[in-house]
């Protein structure tokens, strides 16, 4: 269970595991911290932001700049899920 109230869908986690595996060129698991593993340079760090924004139609701004949102595939999936829920809540 995610402590922030949104359990990411397992297909979403799997999709991000595959994507970050390609980005880092490393076989990673859903809870591997690729930042701590030294796999993320600045190009990749910024690309992760753009990828999540473009793929999941969310806006990532200064409030979201928290490594805890990006450091593992599961955390990124939870972050995207929270953002999408918050966005659709604002629209409706």
């Amino acid at each position, binding site marked *: 269970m995610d402590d922030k109230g949104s359990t990411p869908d397992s297909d979403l986690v799997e999709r991000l595991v595959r994507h970050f595996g*390609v980005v880092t060129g490393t076989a990673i698991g859903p809870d591997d911290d690729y930042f701590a593993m030294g796999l*993320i*340079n*600045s190009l990749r760090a910024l690309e992760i*932001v*753009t990828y999540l924004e*473009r*793929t999941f139609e969310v806006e990532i701004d200064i409030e979201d*700049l928290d490594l805890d949102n990006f450091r593992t595939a599961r955390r990124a999936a939870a972050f995207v899920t929270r953002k999408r829920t918050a966005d659709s809540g604002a629209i409706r």
Partner: protein
Amino acid sequence: MSALRALLRRAESEAAAWDESGLPREVVAAAAAAGVLAMDRAAEHGGAGADARETGRVAAELGAVCGALRSLFTVQGMVAATVDRWGTRAQRARWLPEFTAGRVIAALAATEAGAGSDLSGMATRFTGAGAHRLVSGRELWVTFGALADVALVAGISEDGPLAALVDLDAPGVTVEPVTGQLGLRGARLAHLSFDATPVPVENLLGRPGFGISHILGTALDHGRYTIAWGCAGMARACLADAAAHADERTQSGTRLAEHQSVLAALGRTSVRAEAAWALCERAATDRIDRSPDAQFSTIAAKYAAAEAAVLAADTAVQVMGAGGCAPGSRVARCYRDAKIMQIIEGAREIAEQDLGEWALRCARAGRSVGAGR
């Protein structure tokens, strides 16, 4: 956009003088009046709401006539883009109208003696807490550093990499103008030193920890993009000068263009110049689409366009002979400026490695480079 035409005409006639003595401050106001400074910012902040393609094409027009003016366009645009991307609402409201109006000139300070294209060796430090941080360090080769009012500075803090807009009138700032360098002589370069310079917390950008990867990364990406187009414009201009000269100039009853070697040089150059232009267009498309590939297609465009500019300037000087070498010659100025473009905003060799990584990654994902977009 007749104010832009007037600016371009003026730059064309004065670029040689600016190359000698530096771009004057009043040209910044003229560029603002022409509506080009940070033109890709929204109208509510004084921008023109231009998309990446429109912005790129203006960079190409500026680059064709004056590298220093194009550099002004680049630095002002990159700092504005960064504040827009990662600033708070209050920071956007405070800074963006100043940047688009040219009332505040921005610089980017990201090169140190021990850290050039590799940012990880950065020694600039932010210390302290409370209402102010103190920044100390020395930044080299800052484009428009001698004219700028604020500099976007990145450094290391207790909480990780940090970036801030530093007021260059603040205590502890020393500005040493640089002259006589190879190229970009009109671009008011300076070395900047900060000795416990106070930075109000409202000038800190983004969050600590993200100052290099995200804040500086955004600035450099935007800078590479307009440099790419500026180089593509420079390459086309040099090719046009070379071709016009080859067509007109007759020696011993033979037009230069009738010599096979001259014709072939024009052909080689034109292919590189147009290939670079096409890569700039592709980068524009990726940026408009907000594609995650955009950083890489921008690097590819900048890499190819800088190379095309170097080749085209070389071809033009060669074809034009002594005339190309003469004082005030545009192609001679481009010849010197173009080389800098293979170093600035990430040296050629760094770009090659980034693009190599991109090729590897595309292979892993089972797609070809440039496809799947």
